[in-house]
């Protein structure tokens, strides 16, 4: 049951529409709408199919692969992004380090241990061959 503008309603009488409004390195924010599947009369007013009866934003924290072989919530890690921007490339390298000491498989990993680093390189520079036709004489 979902609490809508008409009070508690069964999910089955509504269509849900999910739209991703933010998709960043750290989180995904989904906007979820519930709309009437069938026209509804409520307290003397008619509400057509598609009437928005409930909506909300749902935030999902991203998880990243780690050296431990499983994903960790980015919230539990310290993030740093290295950026390189020059004539050859635009590169972003997100790094995640342990915020606190962690023991895994009997090994102590101190706070600050690098557990994830990606690199995304936007190439800017072409390789060019110059075509030329010789002139006689």
């Amino acid at each position: 049951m979902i609490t809508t503008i008409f009070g508690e309603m069964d999910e089955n009488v509504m269509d849900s529409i999910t739209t991703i409004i933010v998709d960043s390195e750290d989180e995904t924010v989904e906007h979820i709408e519930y709309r009437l599947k069938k026209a509804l009369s409520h307290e003397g007013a008619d509400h057509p199919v598609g009437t928005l009866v409930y909506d909300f934003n749902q935030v999902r924290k991203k998880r990243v692969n780690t050296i431990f072989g499983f994903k960790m919530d980015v919230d539990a890690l310290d993030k740093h992004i290295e950026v390189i921007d020059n004539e050859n490339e635009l590169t972003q390298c997100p790094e995640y380090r342990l915020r606190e000491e962690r023991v895994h498989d009997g090994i102590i990993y101190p706070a600050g241990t690098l557990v994830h680093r990606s690199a995304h390189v936007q190439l800017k520079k072409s390789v060019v061959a110059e075509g030329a036709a010789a002139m006689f004489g």
Partner: protein
Amino acid sequence: MSNTQAFCSQAKVDLMNGLHAMGSSVIRAATTKDVYKAALYEVVAGDKDATTTVFNTTGEVSGTGYTSGGEIVTTATGPQLDSTTAHFTPSASIVYSTVTLSTAFDAVLIYNDTSATKLALSVHTFGSQTVTAGDFTLTMPTDDGTTGLIRIA
């Protein structure tokens, strides 16, 4: 109108498509395009440049999640002509997913994986990188006569 000396523009595209052979060529098994791959090379190898002729594993990166030879390059869009410049750019980013490459690397070699000798096509360099349990992504420039990844001007 007068005659003008020129490297014919369409011929630049045709060269990219293997339609000219002014020297010894190869017997092609089909008219389909070749498969290209992209291999990563360590900084210490330091020998990938214009003199590179074929793919080899000397200096190629190694690590968890990386397969020697690299990743297939997406070539949905073939060579095109923009004014008098022929250009070709992979039609998708090249992604090495969930890899750990601890030794610094700074170059990618694009080579012809269909050819028997794995002929080299181009070398592209970037700032020295390492990756830890992450993705390495090479995003391509706009595919046109000015910024396309490989051009014959």
